């Protein structure tokens, strides 16, 4: 953990060397989801609701997912860019060091410009929370935080999975964006608006449903039966990272250096 902190600090300092570029990129990162959000807003202005969800409820989901995505892109960027490590053969260097590979890959890159995206989703979250009429109990706030955490874990898990694929394919595949960008885009609406098979896939295989649908039901008091289950469902999302890590270890054992 101390080592992770050091990695964080050093990379932060190095990115801060290019201050203007940093701010410009952060600014840009602020605007990308902003335009998507504007689109969302205009859609709701026209239609009013989507399968019974109103604008602020969807905005809540939107902000949670985007926040989770921003955080995991910032901290798990090393896995996202992993293919370049394999192509250059730099992964060999990590293997000979007496530390965990996961930690080292995580520490190889951070993308602090995602702070723009994060800021944007915090603003949306604040707006959504202030507009939804309901009582915020302590349990609900905990659930909300769990949702974000769980989202971070899932996105990180996907990044790790995609990085693991690089052990075999060497090159990063564009197809991975289905699960990262696509997952984000899809999970910004409550999952039950989609066809059954999509909902099932993204609840049982990749547990986005545990982030944006089940706990949301609890927060909005729409649950039937025991609320505790709904409340704790984000934890199931966190569990997703375990098979990913196992696969990663399997992949590391099968790693063959490209030698360049």
């Amino acid at each position, binding site marked *: 953990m101390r080592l992770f902190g050091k990695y964080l600090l050093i990379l932060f300092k190095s990115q801060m060397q290019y201050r203007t570029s940093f701010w410009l990129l952060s600014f840009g990162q602020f605007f990308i989801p902003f335009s998507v959000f*504007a689109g969302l807003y205009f859609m709701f202005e026209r239609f009013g*609701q989507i399968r019974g969800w109103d604008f602020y409820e969807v905005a809540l989901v939107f902000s949670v997912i985007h926040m989770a995505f921003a955080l995991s892109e910032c901290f798990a960027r090393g896995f996202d860019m992993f293919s370049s490590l394999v192509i250059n053969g730099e992964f060999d260097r990590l293997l000979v060091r007496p530390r965990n590979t996961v930690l080292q890959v995580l520490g190889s890159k951070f993308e602090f410009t995602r702070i723009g995206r994060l800021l944007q989703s915090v603003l949306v979250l604040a707006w959504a929370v202030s507009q939804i009429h309901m009582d915020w109990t302590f349990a609900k706030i905990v659930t909300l935080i769990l949702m974000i955490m769980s989202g971070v874990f899932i996105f990180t898990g996907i990044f790790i999975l995609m990085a693991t694929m690089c052990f075999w394919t060497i090159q990063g595949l564009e197809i991975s964006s289905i699960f990262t960008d696509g997952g984000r*885009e899809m999970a910004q609406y409550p999952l039950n608006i989609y*066809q059954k098979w999509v909902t099932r896939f993204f609840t049982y295989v990749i547990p986005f449903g545990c982030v944006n649908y089940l706990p949301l039901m609890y927060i909005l008091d729409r649950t039937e039966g025991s609320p505790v289950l709904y409340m704790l469902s984000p934890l199931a999302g966190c569990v997703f990272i375990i098979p990913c890590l196992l696969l990663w270890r399997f992949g590391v054992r099968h790693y063959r250096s490209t030698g360049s």
Partner: protein
Amino acid sequence: MKAYVSVFRLRLVNGLQYRSAALAGLATQFFWGFILIMVFEAFYSQALVTQPISLPQLITYVWLQQAFLSLIMLWFRDNELFQLITSGNIAYELCRPTGIYGFWYAKLLAQRLASAMLRCFPVILIAAFLPQPYRLSMPVDAVTALLFVITLILGLFIIISISMLIYISTFVTMSAAGSLLMFSVIGEFLAGMIIPVPLMPDWLQAIVNVLPFRLTADFPFRVYSGHISTSEALKIIPLQLLWLTVLVALGKYTMGKALRRVVVQGG
């Protein structure tokens, strides 16, 4: 002219080499298409009033967007050109016996076309045979189809003129990332890539209609789906031509200016 054509051909062959990348892209595009359609479907399922564009028209719109993505995306960029400018290799480029504007224009055009050729036919073919309601409908008659092709090509020329302006701005700023990002995010929104133009509120549509961005994507797609009638389309095509001339003239002018004071970066 011959020089431009051969640049164009070389680039096309180059782009066609990456077939597996195109295949992966294809899968991605289908996923995106489905997600977008399902979201719109959910919105439409409980809409009380009739909307300005019908759901089948919208689905066609989405598939066309996915099929011609590389023709209409503003962020589709050539890093080589950026590097030319920032690394100083622009000096070689200036030695060539062809006008640099036309040369780059041909390069960008070929790149987009190569990428689109690999993607658009499979997407259109598969989307045309999907079960309802996901199917891509065919244009109502031959005239519509012809108009679609014309408007799409004109739109392509316009988008390249716009992206040429972005490249030219690199001469001044040296770092393209920031300005490019802003430009493309706003441009794409105004082109109806995030939500289709007919679904935007009226005040926004008024702004969008004045700007050239929607002529590149939104307009040809609506012509295809029949949302814009033939007679109306014929009225807008001159507007496309007008924008094209303005943008190219502006690009040539600013490029000439930028080149006169170009600093060849050493290194």
